[in-house]
Each structure stands twice: as structure tokens, then as C-alpha cells.
């Protein structure tokens, strides 16, 4: 491809590795996108009567205590009260799944429980059921700081996620780091570029008119880079999520957040 560019004295033929150097944000300077939102959207997130995500939470609460079949346990049948059993769980995901010997994110864990313990089909990504249950579980961590599990088995997911974050992708040759490490606080057209922390997922986005998962958000960012988004549930997304959570700690969880 480069041969098409006959280069002159500038020596532009030796294009360095297609990476934009990362400048990681120190923990004390990490900020949620919440801080950059207009007061009306902040109020919508804070106010229990106005937050549209609560509709999905209600679905999730119902599913938590409903048996999938008469002879199969509900989530509550194994775990009991979500408020105690699920407190802090989302703040430390993705974690390691012993059964598959691979990293697993919260949505993956919920579907694994359905398959392994409830004898049921996994829910489709972005289905009302999976979003509702994930939001319900994640909301039990609201206000708790994101923690980074010190599990050596997650090391390769962490470094794969970081590599994906800093690598140039797509026709425009942008990287996640180009915007979220290097240019947060600036504007991309009308949009304020946030630091890109996944503190509030699943969250309600006004532009979506609905709840969406962090993977939906990442697919949007990749499409904007004119890159081919990873498929829902792809190991690359789980690795990216692990890196994003490391990068976001110790910000508090905000599920269900509201974003423009």
C-alpha cells in the first residue's frame, strides 16, 4: 500500500508503528462523563422518578426472582437477596471464569448462569431481558468504587485490552487513546469527548432512546472510526472492558447512568 506513495526527501517512507502513544490518566484525575453533562441530564440521572433506566431495572428485579421453568431455580433461588449477594460484583467485573478458563464480563456471567444453572437459553445481546438483569445486578454496586481484581490470570486480557485501546484502527486511523487519553475535554463537533470510563453501564442514552450495554457504546465509537466493530460477546470486547475498568478505578459505579 505504501508503495503507492512515492516518497521524497522527507523520508516519509518509514512510517512508524501505527500507534498513538498513550498518556494514561492518573487515578486522582479520573472523571466520569457525568461531570461534563448539562445540569438537566445530571438531574435526570440522579432523580429516581426521572431516570428512564429504572424501567429496565424493574424488569431486571422481576427476572431476578422468576424461575425460568417450574423445576429450575430463579437467580434469587441460588443467590438470595440481590442487595446483599450482588453488592460490589459489577465493580470488579470482568473477572475470571473457571469453567471456560477465560475472562468473562457481567453479561457473559448472567448468560453462563442461565445455561449452567437454569438450563435455559442465553439471552440475546441488547435484549430487554439481558439489559434489565445486567442493570439490576450492576445497580447493586451504585456508589461503590470500581476495583481492580489482583488476579494474575486476567493479565493477558488486561494487556490485550490496552493494546486494542492504543492501536490505530479503521479508515480514519484513530485510536481510543487518541480521543480518550489525549483529547478528553475537547470537542468532536458538538460532542464533548469524555475520558471514556464505563462507570454507568448498562445506561440510558438519549440518542438511543433506550438502555444499552457498554459493548453497544464501544461499537458506536468503532463505527465512528470507520472500523469494523467486534461482534457482541467477542473476547476482544471483554479484554477492552477489563482494561477500561482498570483505567477507571476508583471512580464510583453509576448504573443506571444517563448520557446524552
Amino acid at each position, binding site marked *: *500500500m*505504501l508503495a*503507492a*506513495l*512515492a*516518497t*521524497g*526527501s*522527507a523520508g*516519509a517512507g518509514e*512510517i*512508524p508503528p*501505527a500507534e*498513538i*502513544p498513550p498518556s494514561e490518566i492518573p487515578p486522582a484525575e479520573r472523571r466520569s462523563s457525568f461531570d461534563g*453533562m*448539562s445540569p*438537566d*441530564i445530571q438531574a435526570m440521572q440522579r432523580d429516581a422518578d426521572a431516570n428512564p433506566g429504572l424501567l429496565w431495572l424493574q424488569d431486571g428485579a422481576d427476572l431476578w426472582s422468576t424461575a425460568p421453568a417450574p423445576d429450575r431455580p430463579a437467580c434469587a433461588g441460588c443467590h438470595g437477596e440481590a442487595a446483599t449477594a450482588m453488592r460490589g460484583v459489577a465493580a470488579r467485573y470482568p473477572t475470571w471464569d473457571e469453567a471456560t478458563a477465560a475472562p468473562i464480563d457481567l453479561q457473559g456471567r448472567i448468560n453462563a448462569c442461565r445455561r449452567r444453572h437454569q438450563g435455559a437459553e442465553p439471552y440475546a445481546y441488547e435484549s430487554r431481558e439481558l439489559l434489565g438483569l445486567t442493570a439490576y445486578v450492576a445497580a447493586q454496586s451504585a456508589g461503590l468504587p470500581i476495583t481492580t481484581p489482583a488476579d494474575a490470570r486476567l493479565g493477558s486480557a488486561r494487556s490485550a485490552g490496552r493494546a486494542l485501546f492504543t*492501536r*490505530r*484502527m*479503521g*479508515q*480514519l*486511523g*484513530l485510536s481510543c487513546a*487518541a*480521543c480518550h487519553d*489525549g*483529547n478528553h475535554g*475537547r*470537542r*468532536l*463537533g*458538538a*460532542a464533548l469527548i469524555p475520558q471514556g470510563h464505563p462507570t454507568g453501564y448498562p445506561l440510558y442514552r*438519549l*440518542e438511543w432512546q433506550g438502555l444499552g450495554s457498554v459493548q453497544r457504546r464501544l461499537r*458506536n465509537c*468503532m*463505527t*465512528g472510526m*470507520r*472500523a*469494523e466493530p467486534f461482534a457482541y460477546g467477542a473476547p476482544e470486547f471483554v479484554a477492552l472492558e477489563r482494561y477500561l475498568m482498570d483505567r477507571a478505578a476508583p471512580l464510583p459505579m453509576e448504573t443506571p447512568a444517563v448520557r*446524552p
Partner: protein
Amino acid sequence: MIGRPGWVWIGGLLLASAAVAGEGALRPVTIVGREIPEPLTTAPGDPERGRTLVVDRTRGLCLLCHAGPFPEERFPGNLGPDLSGVGDRLSPGALRLRLVDGRALNPDTIMPSYYRLQETVRIGAAWRDRPVLEAQAIEDIVAFLITLRDTPSERPVP
């Protein structure tokens, strides 16, 4: 953000994806110093078409990152410098290189290389094997940018 143009970047790019046909292999360009002195096309650039491309957030994409003397265009981005007066600062050849492959000037720049087949990964299916803009579009934009002079008529007097 309610009531404002949202992230035009995302939706717009999808819409634009089917619009332009790829032109296949790129024309060779020669970099001399920090410029590409020779035009990419024989037909001269058209500044009016260039302006249209520059303000089009789904084709030129420039306003996602740059402000400029475009009073009718609201909410430009600020990832790059203001384009007002850029025709005074840079020659046509320097503008051409900046557009064709700004990474030849600054390897870490986030400004896309508009006329270079990317060696990056995971290029979306609709965008593979073609530059961000065609050769004639590059010439049109150069012809427009060179008209941006830092004259009082273009900059509001403080």
C-alpha cells in the same frame, strides 16, 4: 446536549458509506521537503466544491476537529487549530501534504491521512481499499483553504 446536533460523526458516516465509489489504486505523489508541490490531478481544484467538502461533517469531516471562518456552521470541534487564515500560513504544497498524509509531518497526529491507503487494522467493510477522499476532492480543498486569508473581513475585529 438536547436539541443540538448530536454526534453527527457516527450517524453521518454510516449514511455516507454508500455514496462514493472507490477509485482503486492511488496516484503516486512526491513529497519534497514538507510539501507535495505537484497537484494530484490535471483539472485545477475548485474552491467552491472545496468549501462544501470542508463543511460537510460526513465527507470532509474537518469541522469535527477544526473551527474556521464558517459563521453559519455551529458547534465545530476543537481538536485541531482554527483554519482561519491558514492560506497565509501554509503554501498549496504544504496544505496538500497535510491533507494527503499529515503523518509524514507528525507521526502521532490524530488528523486522518486523507489520501493514503491505511495500514491500520479492522477497516470497516464499506471503507476498505480506498482513501478517505478522492484526488480531486483533495485538490478542491487545497484550492479552498488557500483562499482563507487572515484579512479583517474574515476575522471579527475584537
